[in-house]
C-alpha cells in the first residue's frame, strides 16, 4: 500500500512539475483571495490584523477546492481511470498517494500564504510551533477529505459545480479550528490553540481512515 502510494504521489507530482498548474494558477489564485478579502474588509490595519487568520484559511480552503479539481482532472482523461484500475494498484494506495500529492502542494501554498499575510496584514506569528502543527494536521485532513470528495464527483459532467457544494461544508471545521489556532498563535496564547488542535486531529484521522476504507468502493463507482 505504501509503495503504491509513493508511486501515485510521484506520478501526480511529476505531472505537476511538468504542467505547473498549481504553481501558476492555484498559488496566484490564493494570493488573489488574500487581496480581495483585504479589499472587502477595508484598509484599516486593526480589522485586517484581526481577520488575518480567517483570511489565511479561506484562501487555503478555496485553493484546496482548485487542487482537488486539478487532481481529479488528471485522472479524467480518456481511459485513465480504467488504466489505473487495471494497474492492480491498491485503492488505498491510490488514495494515500493522491492525498499526499495534494497535501504537499497545499503545504507549499501555505508557506506562500504565510509570507503573504505577514507582508500584507502586518501580523507576526508568536507561537511558531503551534501554527506549523495546525497547518500540518489541517493539511492531512484537507487532502484526505478532498481526495474522497474528488473521487465522489469524478466522472460526473457537473463535477466542477458540484464539488464545492459537497466539499466546502465538510471542510468548514478545518476553517474554524485552523482560524482559532492561528489566532492563538498570533496572540501568543498557546493553551487556547492546543484546544482547537483537538478538533483538527480527529478530523484528519477520521478522513484518513474513511478514505483508506471507502476509496475502493468509490473507485468502482466512478
Amino acid at each position, binding site marked *: 500500500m505504501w509503495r503504491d502510494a509513493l508511486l501515485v504521489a510521484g506520478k501526480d507530482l511529476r505531472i505537476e512539475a511538468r504542467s505547473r498548474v498549481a504553481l501558476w494558477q492555484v498559488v496566484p489564485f490564493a494570493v488573489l483571495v488574500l487581496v480581495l478579502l483585504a479589499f472587502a474588509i477595508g484598509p484599516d490595519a486593526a480589522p485586517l490584523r484581526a481577520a488575518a487568520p480567517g483570511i489565511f484559511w479561506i484562501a487555503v480552503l478555496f485553493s484546496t477546492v482548485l487542487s482537488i479539481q486539478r487532481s481529479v482532472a488528471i485522472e479524467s482523461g480518456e481511459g485513465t481511470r480504467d488504466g489505473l484500475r487495471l494497474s492492480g494498484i491498491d485503492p488505498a494506495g491510490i488514495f494515500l498517494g493522491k492525498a499526499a500529492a495534494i497535501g504537499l502542494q497545499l503545504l507549499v501554498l501555505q508557506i506562500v500564504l504565510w509570507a503573504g499575510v505577514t507582508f500584507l496584514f502586518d501580523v507576526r506569528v508568536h507561537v511558531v510551533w503551534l501554527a506549523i502543527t495546525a497547518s500540518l494536521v489541517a493539511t492531512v485532513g484537507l487532502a484526505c477529505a478532498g481526495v*474522497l470528495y474528488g473521487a*465522489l464527483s469524478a466522472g460526473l459532467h457537473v463535477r466542477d459545480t*458540484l464539488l464545492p457544494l459537497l466539499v466546502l461544508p465538510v471542510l*468548514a*471545521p478545518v476553517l474554524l479550528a485552523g482560524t482559532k489556532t492561528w489566532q492563538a498563535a498570533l496572540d501568543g496564547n498557546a493553551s487556547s490553540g492546543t484546544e482547537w488542535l483537538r478538533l483538527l486531529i480527529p478530523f484528519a484521522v477520521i478522513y484518513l481512515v474513511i478514505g483508506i476504507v471507502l476509496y475502493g*468502493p*468509490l473507485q468502482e463507482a466512478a
Partner: protein
Amino acid sequence: MTATGQTARPIPRAPAQSPSPSALSAAAAGRSPRWLSVVGLLGVIALGFTVWLGLWITPPDAVQGNLARLLYIHPPIATVALYWAGGVALVGSLLYLWPRTRSLFWDRLAASAVEVGAVFAALTLVTGSLWGRPAWGVWWTWDARLTSTALLLLLEIGYLALRRVPADPAVRARRCAVAAILVAIDVPIVHFSVDWWNTLHQGGTFLDPGFKLHAHGSMLWTFLLGFIAFSLIFVWLLGMRYRIEVLQDHVGDQELEVSLAERWDEGAGLAGAGAAVGVGVGTAPPPPSGSAP
C-alpha cells in the same frame, strides 16, 4: 422519419401496452401498504393530541411562560432529524456497501432518510429560531449546536444534489452510499457539540448521563407524546418517500418507451385531426409527412 414510419408504429407501442413485469411491480408499489397508512394515521392523531395538549391543556411554564410550549415540538423534531434520519441513512448506506446485503432497497431507504432528514433538519432550525428570538433575543447565533445543525442541512443538500445527477443506478447507489456515510460524520458532532463547546444552547435532552426531567405531569406526557408523534410521522414519510423512489426508478426505466408511445399517439391524433378538418389546421402538416413528429 418518413411516411414509412407509420407502418412501424406497432413495434414501439407493443412493449408499453403489454403488461411487462416492471410495469406490474410499479403498479404494486403504487398502492400504499396498509401498515404504512396506519402508521401515518396514528402519527397525525398523535400530532393532533400533542397540539391540543401543548396549546390548551398544559399550564404555562414557571420560567418561560407560553414560550415553553415550543419545546413540545422542537426536541422531537431535532431527534428525528438527527438520530432517526441520520441512523437510517448511515445503516442503509453501510448495508448497501456491504457486499452480502447489497440491494437497491438499502440505497433507496438511505436516500429517503436523507431527504426526510433534510426537511426535519430545516424544521429544527426554524423552530429553534422561533424560540431563540424571544428567549435569547436573536434569530440566529453562532452557537456550536446551531452551526453544526446548519452544516448538517448543507451536507444533506449536497447529498441530494449528488443524488440528482443522472447515472447508472448501481453507480449512483454506491456513490451516494459513500456520501451518506460522510454526511453521517456530522451527526455525532451535533450530538456532542453542547458538551464539547459550552455555548448558548442547553445540554442534551435525552441520552445524557444523569438525565432527569423535572416537569409537571401533563407537560411530561405532552413532551413524550411529541416524540412518539414525530417518530411515527418520520416512519410514514420515510415509507412514502421510499415508494416515490421506487416509482421514479420505474418511470426512469420506462420513460423512453412510454414517451415514444405517447408521441406516436400524438402523431396519430394529429394526423387524424388533420384529415378530419382537412386543410383547416394550418400548423399540422399534411398527414403523410406530418405523422412523424
